[in-house]
């Protein structure tokens, strides 16, 4: 009996310390690594709660795939550390107070209103086996499962559209800049410069049509 408590408290301590690390570390690479530790500790807690399949999905999906995505973006943008800027002075104390209030409310509910809670029983051997999970998922939750696949497809397309560099955007930006410069110099020189750039755009589009899409990716 005592061993269960010790095991739980060690895991809880690991989870809480790594969560504090997420809050406090200034380098976002370390933040991501603390989060991986937190996810792993929670995954072991899932194991103790009789959810082996979820625990392993947690490790592969969360600690594996999602955190790798985070690390990729952090390293891609090179924003491990933010430059020290002016902080809003009341932001931090107010945030701590609000989170404390939330914690107090939750603590009140758990400590004094827990009459409706039942006891946890040690899970049976076949309680959440992959077999049982699969039957439950495809018997009762088939439609949500299929909707999830559409959601993932939409997320995939959305992510690609959001990060795609629009074709010809650079040239169009140049035209805008040139127009502004022409405005500064006076109206006389505006038209020829614009025409010149429009011709360039048309020429480029024609070249793309001839060479096919992707042919100019190399020298861009």
């Amino acid at each position, binding site marked *: 009996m005592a061993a269960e*408590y010790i095991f*739980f408290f060690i895991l*809880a301590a690991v*989870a*809480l310390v790594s*969560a504090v690390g*997420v*809050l406090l570390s200034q380098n*976002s690479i370390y933040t*991501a690594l603390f*989060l991986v530790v937190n996810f792993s500790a*929670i995954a072991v*807690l*899932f194991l103790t*709660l009789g*959810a082996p*399949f*979820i625990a392993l*999905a*947690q490790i592969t*999906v*969360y600690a594996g795939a*999602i955190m790798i*995505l*985070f690390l990729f*973006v952090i390293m*891609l*943008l090179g*924003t491990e550390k933010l430059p020290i*800027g*002016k*902080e809003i002075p009341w932001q931090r104390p107010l*945030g*701590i107070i*609000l*989170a*404390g209030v*939330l*914690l107090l409310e*939750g603590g009140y509910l*758990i*400590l004094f209103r827990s009459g409706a*809670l*039942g006891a*946890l*029983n*040690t899970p049976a051997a076949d*309680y*959440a086996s992959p077999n049982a999970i699969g039957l*439950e*998922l495809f018997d009762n*939750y088939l439609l949500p499962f299929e909707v*999830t696949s559409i*959601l*993932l497809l939409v*997320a995939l397309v*959305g992510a*690609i559209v*959001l*990060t795609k560099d629009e074709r010809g955007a650079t040239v169009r930006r140049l035209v805008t800049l040139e127009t502004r410069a022409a405005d500064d110099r006076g109206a006389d020189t505006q038209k020829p410069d614009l025409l010149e750039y429009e011709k360039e755009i048309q020429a480029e589009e024609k070249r793309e049509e001839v060479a096919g899409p992707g042919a100019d990716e190399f020298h861009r």
Partner: protein
Amino acid sequence: MVPIQYYLGLSMILFAMGVLGVIIRRNAIVIFMSLELMFNAANLAFITFALMHQKLSGQIFVFFVMAVAAAEVAVGLALIVAIFRSKHSIDVDQQSTLKG
């Protein structure tokens, strides 16, 4: 087994820490990670209640939370990359265009 209150208390504390991270951090990516912390705390509560009621629906719901979290992270990080391209910063305090 350890009493259910312990698991729920841990879940509660982790959730509050996630909320605190979203409020006090300025780096958009770290804000996203704090969001993941909150998802995780909610998942822990789901699994705990699934065991209490001896029903698998709670565990199935955690699957859907994971799938939605993965989709949200993919789109959210793409948004952060797009913001970084136009503003050259992911400090959320700097994104104050509407403030004038």
